[in-house]
C-alpha cells in the first residue's frame, strides 16, 4: 500500500473513532461490576475483624482493630481443622477418580472408531440433563444400602458420578480437536492404544485437564447439599456444611461466622490468585473448540 492510500485509510478510521465518552461509561460500568465481585470477600474480611457491637450498628464499616479473636472462636467453635482436612480429602479423591474415569472414555469417544460409539456417547452425555439434586433421595437410599452413609467415600463417588457426563463432554470435545496426523504416525509406529492415550494425547491435553481439575475441585470444595445429607457425624463433615454450625439457635456470633466463611473461601481464592493466569488460559482455551 502506498503512503497516500495508507494515510487515507488512517484518516478514515480516525474520523470514525468511537467517542471516548462511551468508553468512559463502559469502564465505569465494568468497574462497578468488578467492585461488586470483590465485595463479598471484603464483607467477610472486614466483619471478621469487627465486633458484634459494630455489626449490630451497621453491617458495613471498616474494622478498628486487627484482633483475630473471631477467627479463634470460629476455629474452635466449628472444628475447622477436621472439616478442612475432610474437604481436602473429598476434593482430591473426586478429582483423581473423575480423571481416571473420564480420560479413557473421552479418548474412546474422540479418537477410536468402534461400533456403537455415537450411541454410547449420546448415552453418556444425556445424563447431563438430569438435575443432580433431584436424585438426592435415591442416592441417599443407595448409600444407605451400600452402608456408606457418613463415609467420605460416598461423597467422592457421588461427585464423580454427577460430573462425569460433563467431564466426558469437555475432554471429548478437546480430544477431537487434536490433529489426527500425530496419532496416525504413532499408529504406524505400532504404538498400542494405551500408549497413544497416555504418552501422547494426555501430555498434549494439559490445558483441558487443568480445566477439568479446576472445575471439579471447585465444585467439590463448594458443594453443599449432598454433603449435608450424606455426612452426618462431626468427624466427617466438610467445611461447607460444618461452617454453618456457627449459626446459633439463640443468637449468631456474626464475627465468628464471617471468620469461618472466610476460612472456607480463602483456599480457593488462594488457588485462584496463584494459578490465575493458568486457570484463565485453561478455561479460555478449553472453550475454544
Amino acid at each position, binding site marked *: 500500500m502506498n503512503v497516500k492510500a495508507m494515510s487515507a485509510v488512517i484518516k478514515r478510521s480516525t474520523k470514525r473513532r468511537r467517542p471516548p465518552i462511551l468508553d468512559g461509561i463502559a469502564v465505569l460500568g465494568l468497574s462497578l461490576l468488578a467492585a461488586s465481585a470483590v465485595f463479598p470477600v471484603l464483607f467477610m474480611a472486614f466483619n471478621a475483624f469487627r465486633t458484634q457491637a459494630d455489626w449490630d450498628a451497621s453491617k458495613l464499616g471498616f474494622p478498628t482493630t486487627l484482633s483475630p479473636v473471631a477467627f479463634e472462636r470460629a476455629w474452635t467453635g466449628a472444628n475447622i481443622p477436621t472439616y478442612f482436612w475432610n474437604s481436602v480429602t473429598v476434593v482430591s479423591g473426586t478429582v483423581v477418580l473423575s480423571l481416571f474415569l473420564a480420560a479413557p472414555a473421552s479418548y474412546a469417544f474422540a479418537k477410536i472408531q468402534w461400533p456403537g460409539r455415537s450411541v454410547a456417547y449420546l448415552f453418556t452425555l444425556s445424563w447431563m440433563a438430569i438435575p443432580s439434586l433431584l436424585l438426592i433421595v435415591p442416592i441417599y437410599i443407595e448409600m444407605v444400602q451400600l452402608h456408606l452413609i457418613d463415609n467420605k467415600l460416598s461423597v467422592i463417588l457421588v461427585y464423580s458420578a454427577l460430573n462425569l457426563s460433563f467431564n466426558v463432554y469437555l475432554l471429548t470435545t478437546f480430544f477431537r480437536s487434536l490433529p489426527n496426523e*500425530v496419532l496416525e504416525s504413532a499408529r504406524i509406529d505400532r504404538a498400542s492404544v494405551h500408549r497413544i492415550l497416555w504418552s501422547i494425547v494426555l501430555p498434549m491435553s494439559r490445558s483441558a485437564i487443568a480445566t477439568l481439575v479446576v472445575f471439579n475441585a471447585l465444585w467439590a470444595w463448594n458443594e453443599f447439599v449432598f454433603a449435608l445429607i450424606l455426612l*452426618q457425624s462431626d468427624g466427617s463433615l466438610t467445611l461447607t456444611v460444618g461452617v454453618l454450625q456457627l449459626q446459633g439457635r*439463640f443468637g449468631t456470633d456474626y464475627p465468628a461466622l464471617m471468620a469461618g466463611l472466610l476460612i472456607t473461601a480463602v483456599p480457593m481464592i488462594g488457588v485462584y490468585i496463584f494459578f490465575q493466569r493458568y486457570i484463565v488460559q485453561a478455561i479460555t482455551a478449553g472453550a475454544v473448540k
Partner: protein
Amino acid sequence: MTTPNGRISNSGRPWYLVLAAFAVALLLAACGSTGDTSSSAAPDFLSGGATPAPATIKLWLSGQFGAATPGSPYRQWIDAQISRFQQQNPGSKVEVSLLGFDNDQIAARLTAAFTSKQVPDVALIFSGGYTTPYAASLTQLNQGVDNTPGMYDSIGGWDLSCAALDCQNGKGQIFGVPLEGVTYGLFYNKALFAQAGIAEPPRTWQTLLDACTRLKSIGVVPIAYGDRDGYSTDNWVTLMYSSLMESGDIGRVNDGSLAYNDKKLVEPLQTLTQLKTNGCVNPDASTRENSDANTYFTSGKAAMVLMYPQVTSQFQQALGNKLGVMGMPVSGSGPLAQNVAANSNDNFVIPKDAVNKALAFNFIKLATDETAGKSLLTILGSPTLNKAAAASNNNPIAAFFLDGLKDPALPLLDSVIPVKDALFYYKQIQQAFSGAITPQAAMDAVDQFAKTNR
C-alpha cells in the same frame, strides 16, 4: 500444541492397576466402613447387672443443644457431664455430634439416621412430636427406669416421652428420659421500661399494647420478633392458647376431635396480629430469623422478647440486673388463663440399633441426676426437670420458669403434634402474622393439611 517426539515409553499398562486399586479400595471401604450393625438380641442392658465393657459411645445433640459448639455454655454443660461419665465408666469415651438448630434440618438428619440404621448410642431430641414418630426405632426404657430406684419420681415432665404422650405414672411405654422443661417468658428490659414510664409489667393484652405505645415514644422497638420461619408467632400463640382452652384440649387437637380452625385457635392468632398492626414489633419481623430477635433485645434496641428459658444465661450476661421476665399477658377468659403452657423440652433416647446401650443408659442416668440438674441451672439457667435440683435453685429468672413447670396448664402445641403438621403450621401462622393471609385462612389450611395426613 506440542508435537510428540519418538519417546514412547512403556507406560501404557499402569492405568489398569490404578483402576483396579480403586475398585479394591471401593470394596474395602464399602465393606469396612460400617461393620458395627448390632444384633438386636443384646444382653439385658437395662437390668442393672454387670458393668458394661468400656467403649466410645456416640452422642447426638439436637433440640436446645443442637448448636452446642465448643466454647458455648451449652457445650460447657455437655462436657461437664461427659467428664463425669468418663470418670464413672473408666475407659469409656463420648463422641459428640451436633444436629444443628433448624428444625427442618434436625428432622432430616434423624430421618437419615434411622433409615440408614447409622444411629448413635444416645441422642438428645425434642420430646413429644419429635420422639413419637421414631418410637418404633427406639428402645423402650421402662426396665432401666424401674431398676433404678427413685428414678421415675426424681424427674418431672415425663408425659411427652411416652407412647400416646402419656406415661401413666411410669406404667406406660417410656421412650425417653426428659432433661429440662420449656415454656416461654416475656423477657423485658427493666431500664427501658423505667425510661418509658411503665410502672409494672403488663398483665393484660390491653396494657401490653399501651406499653408498646410508650416504648415507641422513646424510640425503642417494643417487642423483638424474628418470624422468618414462623417461630416467633408460634412462641406467642402457644402461650395464648391457655387463655381460651380447657384442660386436655391440646390432646384433642392432636387426635382431631378439636379442629385447628376452631375459634380457640383462631382468636389468639387474630389477637396476636395486633402486635403487627400496632407497630409493636420491628418492621422486618417477618424476615428476620428467630435468633436475631434475641440480638435486638440484648443490644438494647428492643424492650421485650418472648423466649424460652434456655437463653437466660446469655441474656443475663448481656443485661445483668436490667433483665426481668414476666408471664404472657392474658388475652382471654378461659379456665386456664392464669396458668402457663409448658412441657418437657429435650429427652434422651436410645435407638433400637444402638451398639452400646448399657453405657448409653449410664450416660442418661448421669445427665438427668441432681448434680447435672444443678449445673444446668447455674451454667445455662435452664429449668431442669430433676426435682431435687429444681428445689435448690436461687436464680430468680430460672425460678420464674420452674414455677410455671410445676403446674402447667397445657403442653405446647408444637411439641405434641406430628412434625409434618408442625412444619406446615409454622408456615401458615407466619403468613398470618405478616398479613399475607388471614388467621382464619391460615388455620383452615392447617386443618385441611392435618386431616389429609391423619
